[in-house]
């Protein structure tokens, strides 16, 4: 048994094709609604999970659509835990570090680089670790406020 995978409420294994991101969002949204999370929290969590999946496709798989993403969801003792794992190129740990989002100025407009800060903005904790058999695993935790 690895990573307590039998304790998950949901485990999705999805091809790393951006076409399927909408399906991942729908399934994650359904699970969050079943957990009776407030609507605005649902929207934010769906966004952060989508960003983690998009990052895996863009960076770990460099856009390859024929690999797999694994999305695991779990509610435990008032905490939600969402994990996105891939089998792609390991990211340098510093790329997952928490950076505060600064209000960009008119002269400093850079598209991109928003995904990881968004994940940190939405979740209480974002842990990154290399996967057991290579790849990357991002675990995001949120304490329920209700």
């Amino acid at each position, binding site marked *: 048994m690895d990573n307590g995978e039998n304790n998950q409420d949901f485990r999705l294994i999805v091809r790393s094709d*951006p*076409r399927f*991101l*909408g399906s991942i*969002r729908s399934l994650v949204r359904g699970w969050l609604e079943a957990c009776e999370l407030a609507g*605005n929290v649902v*929207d*934010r969590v769906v*966004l952060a999970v*989508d*960003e983690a999946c*998009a990052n895996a*496709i*863009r960076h770990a798989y460099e856009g390859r659509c024929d690999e797999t993403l694994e999305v695991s969801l779990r509610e435990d003792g008032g905490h939600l835990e969402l994990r996105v794992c891939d089998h792609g190129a390991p990211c340098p740990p510093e790329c997952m570090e928490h950076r505060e*989002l*600064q*209000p*960009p100025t*008119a002269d400093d*407009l*850079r*598209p*991109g680089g*928003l*995904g990881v*800060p*968004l994940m940190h*903005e*939405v979740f209480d904790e974002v842990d990154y670790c290399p996967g057991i058999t290579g790849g990357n695993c991002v675990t995001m935790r949120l304490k329920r406020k209700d």
Partner: protein
Amino acid sequence: MALAIEESKSGEETMIGVRGEVDLYTSPRLRTAILKAVPAAGGGVAVDLSGVGYIDSSGVATLVEGLRSAREHGKTFTLIAPSPAVMQVLELTRLDQVFEVQTAS
């Protein structure tokens, strides 16, 4: 999820109406539409986001690219009536202060 992009002219402005979900899969189409419209526009480009049910960071980055391109070309770039989903992401990314936003068209 489908994304519909419709271009029309309104005086000096080119209107780009966007409906559907903007994510890693669909944002390249929006990027192409915006970056093509900006240099060709008379006065500027207005992007109607009232029908956008979802936008991710790649979609927001696309809007930033549009704004940058508009500045380079001396054109205006306005976001029209962003839906609550769009406003939430603009606020989360602190970009709500960067764009010129018109709340009603």
